[in-house]
């Protein structure tokens, strides 16, 4: 009995260790501090963004606390050649955590994944 219990405990510990080893590795944010505590951000950022998106688009309220544009500009990284790396590239801030949680964010099918860069005007 005791042996079986010990075996179970050992299995649990090793499983926990395995999970801990695979925790997502996130690039460090550029800014000083996020708009709320990490625990709140992890849990509530979809709701924050959903609330803000309707206010901005439908009512024209700008400058809200939560903003996908700010997420991207703070959490995107730069490659060695100076180009911005999209936040939904593998291993980047948004993608690494969403891959870990098996959640696919739709945001970046439409929203910019890098901060604003001047675009050259075509046909001039």
């Amino acid at each position, binding site marked *: 009995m005791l042996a079986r219990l010990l075996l179970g405990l050992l299995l649990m510990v090793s499983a926990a260790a395995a999970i801990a080893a695979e925790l997502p590795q996130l690039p460090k944010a550029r800014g000083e501090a996020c708009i709320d505590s990490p625990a709140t951000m992890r849990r509530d950022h979809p709701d924050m963004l959903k609330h803000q*998106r*309707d*206010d901005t*688009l*439908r*009512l*024209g*309220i*700008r*400058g*809200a606390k939560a903003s996908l*544009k700010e997420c*991207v*500009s703070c959490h995107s990284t730069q490659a060695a050649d100076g180009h911005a790396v999209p936040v939904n590239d593998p291993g980047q801030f948004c993608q690494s955590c969403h891959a870990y949680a098996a959640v696919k964010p739709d945001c970046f*099918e*439409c*929203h*910019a994944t890098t*901060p*604003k860069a001047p*675009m*050259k*005007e*075509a*046909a*001039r």
Partner: protein
Amino acid sequence: MTDLSRRQVILASGAILIATPAAARQAGQPATSSQRWGLLIDTAKCGAECTICVDACKAEMGLGGHDRPRTDAQYIRKVNVRDPASGAAHSVPVMCQHCAKPACVDVCPTGASMKRADGIVLVDRHICIGCRYCMMACPYKARSFAHEEQTGQQPHLPRGKGTVEGCTLCVHRIDEGKMPACVEACASRAKGAMLFGDLNDQSSEIAQRVAREATTRIRADLGLEPAVRYQGI
């Protein structure tokens, strides 16, 4: 500096060709119906070959193309018209007319086509299902459909596959107190054929010119009351 003294400064300078829009709203304030943004386009100043407004729009909005003009996204296009009887030819920039009674909003089954309080007609692509009823309803052919997956979007203009899009009157710039990109480009690099402003503000140049001079709205017979007016056609 208060609004009044700012206006006095602008008036005193005397050389301002295009009135700057009213100061940007305070952050956190919604758009209100006290404003009605509109455009006045003088076709006498619009050259047939000039595409500066179209190019500026594409750059501002990050519109790439696939070299397929019939289906590529276009928020503003140049339409060259000619009267067969007299031979009179005009080149007219046509974009979303930001109607007071938009047909696209009437037919949208999901509420994605919407009119903001200040008269700007937008597509909420969070709930657009891509049915394209609005494209069929619009008499101005002002809307486009994103057929392909999009990349390289500008942060201020999300756009993606399977949704309808159209001229936003550069709402992101208006909310900052700036002018639409096409108007700015036309004023700085072309002949300044476009005038942007608040049609409700009687002291604005656009409202005064609309009150003083003869202007037309294209397909005015439809009664949609567009916010875009033309002169010279």
